[in-house]
């Protein structure tokens, strides 16, 4: 049964409220799909953390906790890739000119590490600007080795 579910495609899609509770919810959903996909403990932790960071970004910096704005969240697993998409309805930001959190002058900054952690924990991170508003984060882990 476990072996069978590992090879089955799975898609989960949700529209989440712009609250911190959505962060836990999103992590739980993504880690659940990843577990069924056969990812091991270390990868589950990394996926969970990357998803948390991306949803925190959408809720806090994108939608700014606005109750009228939603976070579109999806997890798609197929034989090749495990993909999480997180989209907000905010004003967006200049993602091509973010300060490097590892630069000596930024090491003691209290924020600015979320995107770096997403990139560190996943195999791919894509960031897109959406029309008419918002940003989308696409987080990918490859299934090949599993």
């Amino acid at each position, binding site marked *: 049964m476990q072996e069978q579910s590992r090879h089955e495609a799975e898609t989960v899609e949700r529209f989440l409220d712009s609250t911190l509770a959505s962060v836990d919810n999103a992590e739980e959903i993504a880690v659940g799909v990843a577990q069924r996909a056969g990812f091991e403990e270390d990868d589950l*932790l990394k996926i969970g953390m990357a998803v*948390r960071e991306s949803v925190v970004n959408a809720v806090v910096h994108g939608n700014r906790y606005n109750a009228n704005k939603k976070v579109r969240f999806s997890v798609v697993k197929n034989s090749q890739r495990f993909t999480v998409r997180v989209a907000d309805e905010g004003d967006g930001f200049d993602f091509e000119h973010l300060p490097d959190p590892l630069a000596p002058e930024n090491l*003691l900054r209290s924020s600015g*590490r*979320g995107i770096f*952690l997403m990139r560190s924990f996943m195999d791919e991170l894509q960031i897109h600007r959406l029309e008419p508003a918002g940003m989308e984060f696409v987080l990918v882990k490859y299934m090949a080795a599993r």
Partner: protein
Amino acid sequence: MSVKLNTRQVGDVSVVDVAGRITLGEGSSTLRDALRDMVSKNQKKILLNLGEVSYIDSSGIGELVSGFTTVTNSGGQLKLLNLTKRVKDLLQITKLYTVFDVHEEEAHAIRSFA
């Protein structure tokens, strides 16, 4: 479980036993408030025991950094004790492991404040 803090005094060092999750929201603000409170009471030697911290996110890392800066700027010292593998890994990839003075044994950490 969110974060729980227990502060005890060992000589002139304030040891803060931290347990649970240091994440955006209650977890990180609890730690921030506790450290600010200690600085306002002129406690200069603070040892954060993170041995029971199960999870920390970028906001939690930010609070550790912010706490370190606050304590240092007030003329004090903030050191870390008993990092779990997860926390140690996170501090290493963010290049913060060498910023903090990290210890594995409490007695050794206490002595290092002298």
